[in-house]
Structures are given as C-alpha cells and as structure tokens.
C-alpha cells in the first residue's frame, strides 16, 4: 500500500493547520475548541492509517521515508526537511495523537469560561504539531526544531494565566514559564553541541542514509568511532561517542526534567491542568527518553555515557519519589511523581532496555494523563482548591472521580494487574537479571515502594478521612470532561496487555527498529514480580493507613505534615525538592543578576565615570554638567573607552609580533 | 627593530622632564606675591573689555563651508587645463560630467536658499 505513504505528512500538518485556523478564524471558545479538537482527532486517524500502512510492509523494511525539500545545503552540511515514520515513531505518534485528542476533548469542558480560549487551543494544537515533528523528523536538526517548538509551546501554555499574580501554591505563572524556558535552554545548548559534534565527526545529521540528498546515516557509523577520542586541550581527552552521549544526556535532563535540571517541572504546574496532563506528563517530557531510544546506536557503543544515563535516571527516580511523598499540593505530587517515573524510563533505556522503557513511557502516558485529568476534575469540582489539606472524605461526594482516580493511583503504584505493574516490573527485572546491576535494581524497588506510599497518602488525604472543609456543591464531571476519563481509565487498567510476558507484542513490534534481544521469561522474574508487588502493596497500604486512620485529625490547612515531627530535616529537604531551587538561586541567579546589574552600570558608564574622573573630580563633573549640555560628557567617555581599546589591541599585536 | 626611533623617545623624555623641572623649580624657589594687577591677562595695564570668545552668526560658517567646497573642486580645473589636449574628447566628457554634478549642487543650494543672507 505504498500509495498511502503521503498520509504521514498529514499527521503533523493537520494540527499545525488547526492552530493557524484556530488563531485566525475562531471567535469564541466553542469554535476554537471544535476546530482544534477536530484537527487533533483527524491527526489521530491519519496516524492509524499510517500504522496500518506500516503493518502491510515487511518487518525489516517497515518504515516510510519522505523528503519534502532540501532544508540546508552548505558544502557537505546537508539537511533535509523530511519525515521518517518507522515503528518507534508509530508508537510515539499514537500516544501523542491519541492521548492528545482525549485531552483536547477534555479541555472543551475544562476551559469553559476561560478568557483566552482561542490562544489556549491554538497553542495546544501547535504543541501537538511540534511534538509530532520531533518524533517524525528524519534528522537531528529537524528534531531540534520540534524540540524547540515544544519548548516554546510549553512556555506559552505554562504562562497561560500570565495575568494572575499567583496560582496555587504560590507560583507566578509568568516566572514559572520563564524558568521552564531558561532551564530548558541549558539542556538545549548542550544538545546543540552534541549535534555539531555528531556532524563534525560522523559527517551527517540524518538518522538513516538519505537517498534524496545522498547523505549517509550517522547511526550506523557510530560504532566505528567507539575508540576515537576528542582532545580537550589541557583537560585530556574523551571518547567521541561518550562526549556526544553526555551532551545529549544534559539535553535529556532539561527536557525530561531529570536531576539536576528537574526544578522547572513542579513550577510548570502553573499552567492549566490539561496542559500539565498532555505536555508535562504524557508527551513532551518523554521526548528525552525518545531521543535516547532513537540514538540507541550511540549509547550502546558508549558504555560510559550509558552508565551515566542509568545513574541519573535511578537517582532521579528515588529522590523525586521522596519529594512527591511530602507535597500537599495536588498537582505538585503528580509533578514530582512524573519526574520520578521519567527517571525509571531514563534508567531503563540507559541499561539498554529500550522496549521496556518505551512500554513504561506508553503506560505512564495513559495513567498519568488519567491522574492529571482526574485531578483537574477535582480542582473544578472544588473551585480551584488544590491543597489536599483542604480536602478529605470526598469519596461520597465524587464517586466517579474517586473510582477513576483509584484506577490511576493503583496503576501508578504498580499493583497487579494494572498497566503500571507490567511495565515497571519489566524495568526492575531487566536491571536485576539482564543488566545484573543489583544496586540500580534496589534503588528502583525502593522508589516503587515510595511511589506506592505517596499514592496511598494522596488517595487517603483526598478521598478518605473526615471532610476538613465543606464541599457540599461539589459534583462529578459530566459531558466532555467525563468520557476521556473513562477511556483513559480503561487504558490504564488493561494497558499491560501491550507487552505481557511471553507475548511481548510491543517488543516484537519494535524489534526491527531497535534490534534488541527479546526478554526471556523465567521463574526468577515471576518471584521478583511477586516480591515487588508485595512491597508496593505494603507501601501503598502504609501510606493510606497513616493518613486515613492515624494522623487524620492532625492534618490542618496551612500546617505542616505530622511526619515532619519524626523525620525533621530529611522531610523538609524532600519537600523543597532537595534544595536545588535554593542552590540555583544562590549560586547562579543572584550572582548573575548582580553581575549583570554591575556590568550594566559599567556599560552605561556609571562606574567608568567614577574610574576616569575619580573622587574630587566628581564635583567638577557636576559643574560641567550644569554648564554644558549632557552630550559632551558622554561622547568624551565613549572616546576614552575607544582609545583605551585601541591601545590594548595595539599592545596585544605588538606582543604577538615580538614573540 | 624600532631602534632608529629610540633617540626620539629619549628626546621626548628629556623635553617633558625639562618642562616639568623648570616649572617646578621656579614655583618652589621663586617668591609668590600675587596682586590683582599681576593676575590680569595683560600686565601692561589694559583693562579687559569682554570675553575673548565672541558669538557671531552661524551663517558665516555656512558660507565658509560652501566656499571651501567649491573652491577645492575648482582646483581640479588647473591640472585639467594643462593636459586637456592629451585627454581629448573622452576627457572632456569626464570633466563635463564632473561639472554637471557640481552645477546641480550649486542649483540645489541656491534653490534651498543657502545663498540668501536672511
């Protein structure tokens, strides 16, 4: 069915057109929502068609490549504007358009009464388009375009409530948006350097050989460079692939909110809740995982870089899970939980468990979107209350929300037989049996226990115990906010069938792209699964029991958690995200501001003024200012700097020629 | 390689030194009894009648500038006068173009009123 190959161009183009149409044509939230939702839904249909086309192709050649035009063509630097739709991309595209469509539908209800619905829906569509471009790009530069595009949309959508001074729990949306953008730029800069290094050493930025441009694919060349070094001057040397991998890892840390660049994601919750669900849980933040999987050829040939990836992922998984256990804001719990789960995925793909990582990415996309949307339903029902200390006992008022939330929570906690159980178990099993790295496996198991604990705590705080505030008017969502929750709840419940042990649909579907040996089923793994589940159940029950039964009466709005009394500074540290924000503020933000303010004064001449004329001359200058117009002073200073510059440059030249 | 210039540098140093030395010595050693008359610009007893810098209309500047402009351009005529036969017709065309441009400038300044005094 090669005739239908053109359909892949529809996938990113439809939401792009939707964004433009929404911005230009739509007046009023109904029109905007309808156009945007239709665009996202049609894109999903197009993806389904493309997947069907892919299915009809032989497994070894199951990919659709299409080059629209030559984007950049300078000497040997050739970049195409082309799409690549292989099985890996198909998985990502299905998640993006599928969950994306559901969230569009949900937003129809959620954003009712918003003051800027046209912008919201246009940006949401633009985000879907950029994210699709990211996963469908056939080269790194185009991928980078999508990478920056999703960052821009994230920035715009976090700042959707830019006119509010602060949103719970005391975040300024405009500042949160800027923070997300700036932190991401750090990662982006490293990623850009990685791209340049790849081009200069491997001679191409295309993933696969490109017949239209005649460029080779860099992935297949990567292995040749396994033992080549780059010189770093006095710092010694480092393997080329290691350098590329580490630079990419920094980019991944920014986009996927891994330590130490994780600080932007909790603040990003200032955006509307559907945005948190789509961008900051299900899709954009997984771009980093996708990047590593796409570049698996580089990482599998650079063990040093890969082990850094594993370390960063595992440590992030544990520390972020601990942070999640200490939050009282409904969405911040989920944000830290997202960071932690992303840590699982990053650790998995770092160990070479690409299929397992993608599996967890998929199931996480389903159940975390579910949790966020259900959280949105709660926030709606309680009229913008996000503080869990002001909830409690809500399961009678909101039975539907309670049930779907419980499905999501159990799936995230990894309770059999929900989706999270299968995917998380596969990662832990890989760490223990295949990678034979018990330390990492133990960290991940500990994280799983903490994950179950904080979900138990959250469910207890929201739905159990005594009502701490009266929410008589609260009611379950209906209409367009209801049935996406049902669909996602079903997905979160049965998502595990995608990759059941022994069947491994997802692994075998991805096998031609990833060339990863199929996981073997063994008794040891089954035992492992039972143990891990038991730990998770224990952790979850502990969390529920502590907060629903033991300390229920001690939870007071505005007061600290009773656990602080027992855990002290450890609790406080976890609550504040391990002080990273504080550290960045002291070590970077403040010195930077002071430095730029100081330099600003120098550049604007204040300090130079003092330097040149000195103390007693100041009165003279003031006199001269009074007598003459302002300009002579400025021009004189400019000329002084000018002359100083000439002298310095001449001296440098003289020194260089004399040598 | 800058060796030939060393004497100039020495000379410069000596000059600066001598100037400073002489002024300092006379200031340190000489008696100083200033009176109003001694401090006047001309010690001959002439009373100053006003500031040395006097204002005059900016129009003078304009005229002076225009004069210099055309004066310098007319200077090109002298070398041309010496070799106009050698240059022949092409030379005439070139100088003609030059003069047309000059005349256009002239017309412009005339029409814009740069030549009228008020």
């Amino acid at each position: 069915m090669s005739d239908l190959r053109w359909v892949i161009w529809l996938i990113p183009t439809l939401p792009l057109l939707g964004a433009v149409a929404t911005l230009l044509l739509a007046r009023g939230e109904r029109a905007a929502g309808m156009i945007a939702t239709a665009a996202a839904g049609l894109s999903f249909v197009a993806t389904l068609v493309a997947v069907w086309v892919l299915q009809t192709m032989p497994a070894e050649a199951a990919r659709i490549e299409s080059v629209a035009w030559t984007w950049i063509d300078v000497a040997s630097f050739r970049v195409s504007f082309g799409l690549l739709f292989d099985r890996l991309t198909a998985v990502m595209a299905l998640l993006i358009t599928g969950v994306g469509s559901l969230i569009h539908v949900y937003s129809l209800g959620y954003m009712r009464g918003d003051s800027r619905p046209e912008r919201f829906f246009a940006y949401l569509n633009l985000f879907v388009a950029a994210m699709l471009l990211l996963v469908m790009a056939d080269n790194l530069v185009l991928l980078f375009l999508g990478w920056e595009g999703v960052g821009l949309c994230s920035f715009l959508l976090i700042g959707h409530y830019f006119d509010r001074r602060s949103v719970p729990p005391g975040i300024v949306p405009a500042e949160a948006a800027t923070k997300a953008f700036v932190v991401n730029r750090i990662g982006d800069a490293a990623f850009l350097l990685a791209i340049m290094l790849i081009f200069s050493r491997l001679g191409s930025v295309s993933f696969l050989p490109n017949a239209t441009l005649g460029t080779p694919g860099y992935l297949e060349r990567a292995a040749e460079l396994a033992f080549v070094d780059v010189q770093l001057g006095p710092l010694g040397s480092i393997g080329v692939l290691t350098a590329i991998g580490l630079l990419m890892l920094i980019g991944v840390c920014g986009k996927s909110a891994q330590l130490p660049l994780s600080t932007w994601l909790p603040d990003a919750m200032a955006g509307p809740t559907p945005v948190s669900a789509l961008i900051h849980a299900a899709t954009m933040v997984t771009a980093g995982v996708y990047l590593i999987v796409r570049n698996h050829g580089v990482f599998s040939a650079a063990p040093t870089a890969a082990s850094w990836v594993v370390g960063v992922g595992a440590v992030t998984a544990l520390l972020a899970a601990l942070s999640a256990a200490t939050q009282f804001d409904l969405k911040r719990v989920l944000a830290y939980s997202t960071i932690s789960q992303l840590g699982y995925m990053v650790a998995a793909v770092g160990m070479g468990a690409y299929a397992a990582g993608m599996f967890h990415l998929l199931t996480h996309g389903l159940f975390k979107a579910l949790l966020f949307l259900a959280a949105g339903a709660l926030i709606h029902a309680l009229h913008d209350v996000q503080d869990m200390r002001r909830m409690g006992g809500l399961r009678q008022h909101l039975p539907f929300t309670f049930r779907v939330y419980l499905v999501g929570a159990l799936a995230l906690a990894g309770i059999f037989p929900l989706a999270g159980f299968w995917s998380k178990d596969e990662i832990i099993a890989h760490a223990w049996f295949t990678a034979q790295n018990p330390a990492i496996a133990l960290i991940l198991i500990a994280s799983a226990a903490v994950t179950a604990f904080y979900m138990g705590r959250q469910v207890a705080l929201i739905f159990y115990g005594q009502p701490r505030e009266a929410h008589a008017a609260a009611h379950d969502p209906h209409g367009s906010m209801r049935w996406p929750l049902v669909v996602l709840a079903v997905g979160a419940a049965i998502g595990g069938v995608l990759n059941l042990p022994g069947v491994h649909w997802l692994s075998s579907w991805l096998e031609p792209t990833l060339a990863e040996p199929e996981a073997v089923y063994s008794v040891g793994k089954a035992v492992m699964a039972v143990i891990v589940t038991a730990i998770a159940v224990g952790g979850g029950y502990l969390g529920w029991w502590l907060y629903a039964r033991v300390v229920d009466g001690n939870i007071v709005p505005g007061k600290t958690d009773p656990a602080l009394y027992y855990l002290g500074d450890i609790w406080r540290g976890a609550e504040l995200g391990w002080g990273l924000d504080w550290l960045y503020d002291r070590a970077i933000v403040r010195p930077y501001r002071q430095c730029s303010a100081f330099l600003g004064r120098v550049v604007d001449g204040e300090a130079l003024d003092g330097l040149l004329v000195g103390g007693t001359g100041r009165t003279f200058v003031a006199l001269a200012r009074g007598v003459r117009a302002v300009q002579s002073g400025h021009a004189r200073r400019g000329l002084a700097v000018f002359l100083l510059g000439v002298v310095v440059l001449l001296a440098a030249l003289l020194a260089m020629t004399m040598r | 390689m800058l060796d030939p210039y060393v004497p100039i540098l020495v000379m410069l140093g000596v000059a600066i030194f001598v100037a400073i030395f002489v002024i300092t010595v006379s200031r340190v050693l000489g008696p100083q009894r200033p009176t109003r008359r001694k401090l006047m610009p001309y010690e001959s007893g002439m009373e100053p009648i006003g500031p040395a810098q006097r204002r005059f209309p900016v129009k003078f500047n304009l005229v002076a500038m225009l004069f210099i402009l055309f004066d310098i351009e007319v200077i090109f005529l002298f070398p041309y006068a010496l070799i106009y036969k050698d240059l022949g017709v092409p030379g005439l065309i070139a100088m003609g173009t030059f003069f047309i441009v000059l005349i256009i400038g002239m017309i412009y300044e005339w029409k814009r009123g740069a030549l009228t005094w008020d």
Partner: protein
Amino acid sequence: MITLPVIDWTIVAQLLVVFGGATVLLLLDLAIPAGRKQVTAYLALLVVLGAAAVGVMHAGVSGATFGGTLRLDPFRTAVGLVCLAAAALSILLAVTFLGRHQIERGEFAVLVLFGVGGMLLLVQAADLVVMFLSLALLSITLYVLAGFALPEPRSEEAALKYLLTGAFATGFLVFGIALIYGATGSTTLATIAAAGPGLTGEYRLYAAAGLLLLVVGLGYKASLVPFHMWTPDVYDGAPTPVAAFMSVASKAAVLAALTHVLLVGFGELRALWAPILAVVAAATLLVGNIGALVQQNVKRMLAYSSIGQAGFLLFGPIAASDRGIDALVFYLAGYTAANLAAFAVLIALEARGETEWSMARLSGLWQRSPGLTLALALALLSLAGVPPTAGFIAKFAMLDAVWQAGYPALVVLGVVTSAIAAAYYLRVLLRAAGPAETDAPPMFGDWPLRLGMALAALAIVVLGLAPGWLLSFS
C-alpha cells in the same frame, strides 16, 4: 597622449543607477511642493528597485575595473542586494513616519540614496582609498540622517555625538591606510596581498599595525566593542527609521569591506589578526548581550542587541572559509529582515513627541493588535535564534563555520550569549503578551508601513524554512 582607463560598465552600472538617480532626484525634489514630499520617497524607492534589478541581472558577473580598485563578484552582489533591500524597506517604513513627526523633507530619500550608494561602493571597493572615500560618503549621510528630526534636541545630540566619534574613528582609519601604504607601497588589496610574504621585520609590524587601525576604523561603524559606545545614544536619539537603516545596512557594507581587507589583503597575517578578532568578537558578544539585559528603553535594548549581533557577524571573517562567507551573507540577510521588522513595530507605535521608548508601551500589545505582536515575535525570535526563523539557520551556519575553523571557545560563547539574548527578547514578548500597563498609545497602520513590515516578516519565515537558495550562492 594619455590613455584613459577602460571602464567595464557592467561593473559600475549599479553604482551609476544609484548615484545618477540620487543626483536627478535632488533636482526634481526642488520642484515638488512641500506637502507632497512622499512623491520623492516613492521615486527614490524606484531608483533602489532599479539598482536591485541591475544587481540581479549581473548576479553571476565577476570582474574588476578602474585599475582593479572596483570589483564585482557574487559575494559583493549579494551583500549589495542586502543593503538595497534594507534601503527600500527603510524608505517604506519612513514615508508616513516623517509626515507624522512633521519632519517630512525631500532630502530624506535623497540622503538614503546617497548613503546606500556609499555602501555599495564600500562593498565593491578593492582599494583602501576607495574604501575610505565610500566610508566617508556613507558616514556623512548617516550623520545628517541621525539629526534629521531637527529641531528635536535628542536627534541633534545623536548627530553631533555620531559626528564627533566618527571623525575620531576616521582618523585611525586614515592612519592605518598610511601605515599599510608605507609598508607595502600600495593601497590596492591585491597588490598588498602580493607584497605580504615579502614583509619582514618592522615592515611586517607596520603592516599589522596599519591593519589593526583599519579594523578599528571599520569596527567603529560596525559597533564592535570597545568602539561601540556611540551606538545606544545614536540609535536612541536618531529618528526610528534612520536607526533601523543604520543598524542593518551600514553594518552589512562594513562587514563586507572588513572581510575583503582581512581575507583578500591580509590573508597572509591571519595567524596575527584572527586571535585578536576572536577576542574582539567575544567582548562584543558579552558586552552587547549583557548590556541589553538591563535596558528598560526598547530602542537602547535593540542597540545593545545589534552590538551583540555584530559579534556574531564577526565570526564570518574569523572562520575565513567559503562556509564562513556563505554564513555571513545569510546572517546579514536574516539579521536585516529581523531588525527591520522589530523597528517597524516600534515605528507603528510611535506618535509625535515621544521621547523615551519605554518597554511599558509595548504591554498589552497582543490585545490591541495581534498582527503587530506577531511581527514583533517573529523578529525577536529570529534575533534570538529560535527555529524555524532565519536567525536559527544563520546562527547555526555561523557556529558551524567557526567550529570548522577551529574556534570551539567561540562556539560555546556564541551559544551561551544566545541563551542570554533569548532572555531579554522574551522579556519584551512577555510584556507584549501581558496586560496593558499604560494608557494605550496610538497605533499607525498605513499601507507602506504595513507592506514594509510584512515583507520583512515574510523574509524571516522564508529564509528560515527554505534557506538553501541563499546559503549556497558561492
């Protein structure tokens, strides 16, 4: 019999169109009544378009005339076209601005024509004396243009400051030319290059010092640090369309001249000038971008940002390769489009009698005019180097060129300062997207302004999406 030099008319055709047109227009303008001076501007626009057409016609021409003092090649043609495009757009942006500010005088268009003529001559110059001459021509027109809002004191102040510092810098330039002439016995770049290998001892030093002073004189015009101090004051005081014109066109011409001097005339001394220039580029990037961070005045912010961009432009000659030259042309084109679009937005919001261009005046722009905000966003994102705008490709190509030339430190610095730059550009955009803070200032949206803005914005997008045709011209 003295033989006159043979003149290749195809090479000077473009210059003849511009200067001839300007001279004729000077006379014609006298006959146009005071209220109808827009006619002069449109006629000037025709002259510029004519010159551009001549340039396109001769796109493939390479050659020299006037004894090798004037040259034409694809690089020169391309930069010349960038200058002409900048002039055309500036005239479009200025047409109604001047009337609104009651400074509608026919000389504006004529001065722009003479200025752009000087720039074309500077780009085509292959001889230091011609270079000096053309630089003086373009400088003098810009001095007058900077003071064009007479009797507005800020404008007069800008003109005087520009004149003072300009005269100062020209002194260095002439001294440099004299030193080079003394060392090599010539002012023609080709001859200087031929004399290069034979230079020994102090002659080598004189040539290098002369080159340095030449770079100082040219660098002043391109606002390289530390010769940049005039830039914010002059951009701030000059009428906004003039600031727009200055910030792009003269920079393009000067960078082309600088490239010729360094690569053609003194390729021999590259080991000497490349590190110095790299340091200057680094200082320019840092001072420009950090200086822009603290500005509350949008015009001053754009001035500092243009200093920062000059640092990036310098990467072209530093790379000293075909790739660097390609990147330079592309960067100039993208920067011209983006900066003109940004200034166009300011022009659309500037009523008569405004003095401080404070950032608060942009607040709430989105609510009042999404079109203007879109143009501003495109311009600033391109200046910041965010894909898919022209600025991204331009920065990428430049970084790639210096990377290949072996300056990884400059690449890192370029990326870091771009990140800093993104912060202050975004700050402006945030203000524009945010709620209004002051009383809504008036907006002006006449068709020449809109056309100019739309063309510039279109160029940003087209260059960003399909840069191939411009990137690989050489």
